């Protein structure tokens, strides 16, 4: 896509209140331009999103009885995906940390990709929270000042603050960089760099607060562990880099941008540490629970080995462990890009299972009165889940598409500088 540069010296003073909406409108129009492959991709995603919407409309009308959720397992696929999404959003700043903290200029150019991924991932989280609500019509009760916001006591209110704050920070940085490009001006570091640093700290906070949602509940021994937040951060630093490694290659191929292998190498080194660390922390939990025995081990031993013939989660967790372990081996062996991609997919799916079927669901099994009621998501839940993911990928695609001139411009400038 190409933006026509409309600014001259006189319009510079013109108010941004008019120009910025026009820029957003251009972005929107731009989302309808592209080749057949782009159209096919976008149509598929839209179709999946519409199927999800249909399922959701059905759920709103019929009530959540059409999910497999019960008073025993009262959170399921939606909250699992929400939790995973927060990790993805936090992990997306892995692009930002080497770029700014260690002044890696090659990564600098690509941080906008991480920021866009963060925006799409936060959108995913917010959608999953909304589809999980029994009364979406009362969403306004959560608004500070208008509703009744139980802050600072409820961890969920903290989560609302940090997630929306993170969304705003990333929207600001991305929006500013793209807008400057649209105006044909050089971005002023004072306007966005402080926010980049803020986003790094904030990224840690979003996943910490999300872990605190669960680990602060004394009635759920499986979650009530101080290791939960470190585990969340550890696994976020797997999903973010793993996703970005694959994404960079897709961008390179589809948009024909010159991205060399160095940033990918940096992210790979991160994975070399975080995948084994995540496994280590899981094993530490496993040891504490199983060696001690008693109540604290009930959920974990149900998860790993089942309970009196109830084994719904057993295949999930062993798949996750197998994926995580093999991705650990792959990133440490001398495989090429293809092997690395395989490792990324394995790690991504492995963590997705570990956070969902391996963490949210077993928190409810056994129930607080010791009953083992299993949970197997219904088709409706899978449809809604797929729909939300499709929506998130739609946003991501549009974001990357919009960022293309920024990437092209910066990469070109960098090459010119080096030569």
């Amino acid at each position, binding site marked *: 896509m190409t933006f026509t540069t409309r600014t001259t010296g006189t319009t510079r003073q013109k108010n941004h209140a008019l120009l910025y909406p026009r820029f957003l409108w251009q972005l929107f129009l731009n989302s309808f331009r592209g080749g057949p492959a782009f159209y096919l991709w976008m149509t598929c995603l839209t179709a999946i999103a*519409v199927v999800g919407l249909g399922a959701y*409309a059905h759920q709103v009308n019929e009530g959540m009885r059409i999910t497999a959720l019960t008073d025993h397992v009262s*959170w399921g696929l939606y909250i699992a995906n929400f939790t995973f999404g927060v990790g993805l959003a936090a992990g997306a700043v892995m692009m930002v940390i080497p770029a700014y903290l260690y002044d890696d200029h090659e990564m600098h150019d690509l941080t906008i990709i991480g920021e866009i991924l963060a925006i799409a991932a936060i959108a995913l989280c917010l959608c999953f*929270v909304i589809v999980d609500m029994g009364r979406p019509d*009362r969403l306004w009760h959560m608004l500070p000042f208008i509703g*009744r*916001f139980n802050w600072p006591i409820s961890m*969920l209110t903290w989560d609302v603050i940090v997630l929306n704050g993170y969304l705003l920070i990333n929207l600001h940085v991305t929006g500013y960089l793209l807008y400057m490009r649209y105006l044909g001006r050089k971005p002023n570091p004072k306007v966005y760099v402080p926010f980049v640093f803020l986003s790094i700290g904030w990224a840690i906070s979003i996943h910490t607060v999300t872990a605190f949602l669960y680990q602060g509940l004394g009635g759920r021994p499986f979650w009530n562990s101080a290791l939960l937040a470190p585990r969340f951060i550890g696994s976020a630093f797997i999903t973010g880099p793993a996703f970005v490694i694959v994404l960079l290659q897709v961008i390179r191929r589809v948009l024909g941008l010159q991205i060399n292998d160095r940033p990918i190498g940096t992210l790979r080194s991160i994975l070399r540490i975080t995948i084994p660390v995540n496994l280590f922390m899981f094993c530490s939990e496993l040891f504490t629970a199983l060696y001690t025995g008693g109540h604290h081990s009930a959920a974990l031993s149900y998860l790993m080995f089942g309970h009196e013939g109830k084994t719904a989660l057993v295949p999930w967790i062993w798949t996750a462990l197998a994926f995580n372990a093999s991705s650990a081996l792959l990133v440490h062996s001398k495989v090429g890009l293809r092997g690395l991609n395989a490792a990324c997919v394995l790690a991504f799916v492995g963590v997705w299972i570990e956070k969902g079927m391996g963490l949210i669901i077993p928190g409810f099994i056994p129930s607080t*009165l010791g009953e083992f009621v299993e949970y197997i998501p219904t088709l409706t839940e899978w449809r809604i889940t797929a729909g939300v993911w499709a929506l998130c990928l739609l946003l991501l695609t549009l974001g990357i598409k919009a960022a293309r001139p920024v990437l092209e411009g910066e990469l070109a400038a960098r090459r010119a500088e080096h030569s």
Partner: protein
Amino acid sequence: MAETTSTRRRALKVIGATLGASAFAAAAAPIKHWAENLSLGEVLQKHYQELTPEQLKDVLSRLERETLRKYGAEVTIEDIRPEPNTSFGYALNLSICIGCRRCAEACHKENNHDRATNNSYIRVLEMQKGSLDLEKGNAHYDHPVPAPDKFYMPVQCHQCDNAPCIKVCPVQATWKEPDGIVVVDYNWCIGCRYCEAACPYHARRFNWKAPEIPAEEINPHQSYLSNRIRPQGVMEKCTFCLHRTRRGQLPACLEACPTGARVFGNLLDPNSEIRWVLENKRVFVLKEELGTKPRFFYFFDE
């Protein structure tokens, strides 16, 4: 040539957009149906504690009209406030409970629970003698009671003084009343179910669908914070039958108990039976180590 291609492309886009928009509208149609059943007054209603007396009066009469329209039953919904100098407590004698589940049944009827799911705020666990391990308990026993080597442990809301459910609620839709009862504003709850995850006693229930009750079975004596028919998609819980107990009656579960295992009363009244039990029996609370400070006590006779 170029012109025809662009015209064709344009036509394709228009067709695509039309198809997309109609698919979108068709998919979202059930939401419209659902929204038609929502009144504006319901959507914009304020938090219970912020309603003026006039607003509350309007809300109560609106709810009565809605019950008539949706369930075909004439009911009265009152706002029953806590009595001064009252702090409720409940105790249950595990030595004489026989596990007949009449309490659960009485709760089901008194509190207008959904008939199809046979919901109740009370769950009776059949426990192995010699152990208080809940995992060894069984809530689905189906044989004559009491069975040998078993004892029975009904569990309902413990109305904790340090209630995890109140802490976690993001919108303050659940709170503790001055007489110790933890209530839910069914018209303020957003249905996130965080309280259900936080409760260590499995005391909270979610309305996975709108309750279905035949008009003739509906208990018409209702109150806003307790046994009125709950809307779809919100949390509910035991309220110690506040519509009865705040007027000097006993909870429905206690009245239904054939063995006299249940003792209810005002903890601030030194002559009450509940005080006598707490002072003279070996009393314990469930999961004391969690620091929830329940107002529901268990005790053994011998």
